[in-house]
């Protein structure tokens, strides 16, 4: 009996050791993140103002703002979303519901998983050759958006597939047993039930894309622009235009990098302030993803 008691004490001790180790590891991660964010806030919060958000960059740090940068980021995200979402979701649905499970499908799956790990600069090079030179889209928002769309495409596809896989087969059988075709089942059941997971995947993909700088630099985003892309809505005919797609642009990460590279300390404050704005944009997107996932999970209980 004494042996058993000793053995139990021994096991419990190591259990406790691991508990403490795990807790400390988590705390270290959180502490670092917290320190980083506090540092950023302390440095940059003084520059945050309406003026900062609505001014163009300038030689004078107090005048310099992020208007062109965040408009560029915003428009870029729109193009990325419009390109990546339909392609990614459709591909995910095809791979899960339509494709026969043979060696060809396996190869496709492996390749998509690999693509998720390709360095982003490679996507930049691809976009440069394909979109800038071959399709002649130029160094524009369209090119940047498509480059980022390719970057996050594997993520959207995988998130879609995971969401679809979570749907129990009994639901599919119930649908087919009532005489539905595959498309009817996908339209009425598969897509609605996997929406939560798909949207979460999309938002996570976009919040990754928002911070990707390498491909954007490669396709030629400018660093200092004091103008906005053409407005989509104008007061003359035609009232709606797509010209902004082909305009030059800049994005938040590039602006931040540009300011931090300058010797003047004041510009570093600007960089910190822009960093805060970018962080807030990312956190808001993540919060939206969590909220959407929560809402969908409530509605659908397997």
């Amino acid at each position: 009996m004494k042996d058993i008691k000793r053995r139990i004490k021994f096991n419990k001790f190591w259990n406790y050791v691991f508990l403490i180790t795990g807790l400390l590891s988590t705390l270290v991660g959180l502490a670092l993140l917290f320190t980083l964010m506090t540092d950023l806030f302390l440095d940059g919060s003084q520059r945050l103002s309406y003026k900062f958000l609505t001014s163009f960059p300038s030689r004078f740090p107090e005048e310099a703002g992020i208007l062109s940068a965040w408009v560029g980021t915003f428009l870029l995200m729109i193009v990325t979303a419009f390109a990546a979402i339909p392609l990614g979701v459709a591909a995910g649905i095809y791979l899960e519901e339509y494709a026969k499970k043979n060696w060809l499908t396996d190869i496709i799956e492996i390749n998509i998983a690999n693509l998720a790990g390709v360095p982003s600069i490679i996507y930049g090079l691809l976009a440069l050759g394909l979109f800038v030179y071959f399709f002649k889209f130029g160094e524009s928002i369209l090119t940047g958006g498509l480059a980022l769309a390719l970057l996050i495409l594997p993520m959207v596809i995988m998130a879609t597939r995971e969401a679809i896989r979570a749907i129990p087969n009994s639901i599919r059988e119930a649908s087919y047993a009532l005489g539905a075709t595959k498309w009817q089942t996908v339209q009425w059941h598969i897509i609605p039930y996997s929406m939560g997971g798909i949207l979460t995947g999309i938002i996570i993909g976009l919040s990754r894309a928002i911070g990707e700088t390498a491909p954007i630099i490669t396709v030629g985003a400018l660093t200092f622009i004091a103008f906005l892309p053409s407005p989509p809505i104008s007061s003359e005919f035609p009232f709606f235009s797509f010209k902004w797609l082909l305009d030059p642009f800049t994005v938040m990460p590039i602006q931040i990098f540009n300011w931090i590279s300058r010797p003047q300390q004041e510009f570093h404050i600007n960089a910190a302030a822009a960093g805060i704005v970018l962080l807030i944009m990312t956190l808001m997107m993540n919060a939206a993803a969590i909220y959407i996932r929560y809402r969908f999970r409530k509605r659908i209980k397997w």
Partner: protein
Amino acid sequence: MPKENTISERLKAEVKNLNFYYGDAHSLKNINLPVARREVTALIGPSGCGKTTFLRCFNRMHDLYPHNRYEGEIIIYPEKLNIISPSVDPIEIRMQISMVFQKPNPFPKSIYENVAYGLRVRGVNKKSMLDDIVEKSLRGSALWDEVKDRLNTSAFDLSGGQQQRLCIARALATDPRILLFDEPTSALDPTATSKIEELIIELKNEVTIIIVTHNMQQAARVSDFTAFMYLGEIIEFDKTYKIFTAPSNKLTDEYITGRFG
């Protein structure tokens, strides 16, 4: 096999020399079975005897998965159509033969939408028509009074027994010619079970029913004809009272009396 005049001359379906293969495995061997019109035919037998496999041939569920192969015929009357012929569209068959599954599987939608789905698939979208058929089906599965005030609430809020009755309503909404039950009460408590058994006895006045059941007493309670299956073959088929009181085959007798199973 009994002679022709012991079964109603009016058959809904007839299975002739059905063989079924899961890949290389020969799951169903030379099945021959008459299915009487507007009667309940039960399939009983120990686990793995092939009764569910056999049931799922009737609505071509095996077509959904690869490496499955049918041989032989299942003839539907009065058209004399072989429903497992490769030239027949499985979707056409599933539109006329409905199934209720072992574990209740309502859609994560409202009660109304669950029952209406089969109709929407057929292009029926007019609200008045849907309302009528939804009510009729829910009455037909003895669920209407319990849910009529909450048709737009989630089907998942119902109890297990209610969910299964909802699945029955969903299967009835499309006015099927044959209704297939795959162990419909094995996941339910005794009260829900007896409600569903009562339902089945009532439903047979409208529709032909084939039921797979693990529970011999249930087969004895609800069915008119019973087929005993073992290792992919039909060992004996006869009127229910005869199978359970005086079976002709020794194996049937041993199963009935619980010597194996």
